[in-house]
């Protein structure tokens, strides 16, 4: 009995650290953001943006909103399925021989497919940074830590 309680405490303790990022992961995230930091080059304006005529109609705006909502819903559903799989301990016991990570990746793949369809198949790398980036400012390279 005591042994079970001890195991449970250890399990809970390991789960409690889920909110705390491992320093290596935090560093990877920080480096990724820093590497891709580009500051806007277009001058700021309060004026309403002028959309291309092909996109400026209300129906086009509705379509964009709809696509965005569909994409978000698909991503949320995929993420939820992955989380559910992990929570249920699926994977080794789901009969497919997949582990929970596989389930998450499958769900992620489905979400990516939806994302690709709703964006017309263009990847973000194909679109580039929508805000541009001044030459020579691609990576401010201010070192690690909390400073950008």
């Amino acid at each position, binding site marked *: 009995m005591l*042994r079970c309680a001890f195991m449970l405490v*250890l*399990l809970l*303790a*390991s789960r409690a650290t*889920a*909110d705390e*990022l*491992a320093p290596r*992961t*935090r560093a*990877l*995230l*920080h*480096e*990724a*953001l*820093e*590497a*891709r*930091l580009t*500051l*806007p080059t277009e*001058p*700021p*304006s*309060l*004026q*309403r*943006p002028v959309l291309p005529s092909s996109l400026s109609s209300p129906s086009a705006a509705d379509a964009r909103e709809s696509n*965005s909502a569909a994409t*978000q819903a698909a*991503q*949320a559903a*995929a993420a*939820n399925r*992955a*989380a559910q799989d*992990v929570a249920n301990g699926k994977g080794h016991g789901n009969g497919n021989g997949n582990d*929970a*990570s596989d389930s*998450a990746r499958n*769900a*992620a793949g489905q*979400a*990516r497919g939806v*994302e*690709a369809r709703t964006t017309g198949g263009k990847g*973000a*790398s194909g*679109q580039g940074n*929508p*805000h541009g980036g001044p030459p020579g400012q691609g990576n*401010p*390279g*201010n*070192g690690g830590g*909390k*400073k*950008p």
Partner: protein
Amino acid sequence: MSPLRPAVLALLLAAAPPSESHLVAGADAFRAEAYEKALVEFRVAEALGSADASWYVAASLLKLGRAEDAVEAFVLAERSNQGGAGDALLEVYRGQACYAAQLLVCADRWFGSAEARAGPRLAPQLKALRSALRDALRPEQIEPAIDRFLDRAAALQRTRPALALAFAEEAAALATRSPERHRQDEATALAGRLVAAAPKGGR
């Protein structure tokens, strides 16, 4: 104790949270400019309980050109956890999201916050951006912008209250710069209602 027990205990202790691998995958994808993949990985990490993933979801949305979605995601990230709060780099991304969504006061706020802690290369760039932001707040454009943002906030307040809050706060901030305090009470009241209605500490 059987010989297996120590191994099981060690595994339990060493087990990384399930979201960790997705955060790492998201970081790799972000670095490789595969922002759609990064977004999905961060979303999965978020669903698996990572308190920090929401900030990186927002940054990925910005990179995908979905500025308003990014603004909304930053508001939600701040609301649901404080993990990324105070990180100057995330503040720059948040400022960029505001900038791209034409929320210029919001952009100035986050660039200003980051500038104070930025390194010697980035700080002057942020300073220049903030100067351009101040120049862009032309008196003759403020009132139409307030009207536009309040219309958006009103339209979104039920479906996307976090984004509506960003618009309402921008309208309220702009109203303080309007000579006539154009619709200031209305903007402040709407922002207050949206803050009061926001769920505390969760999404």
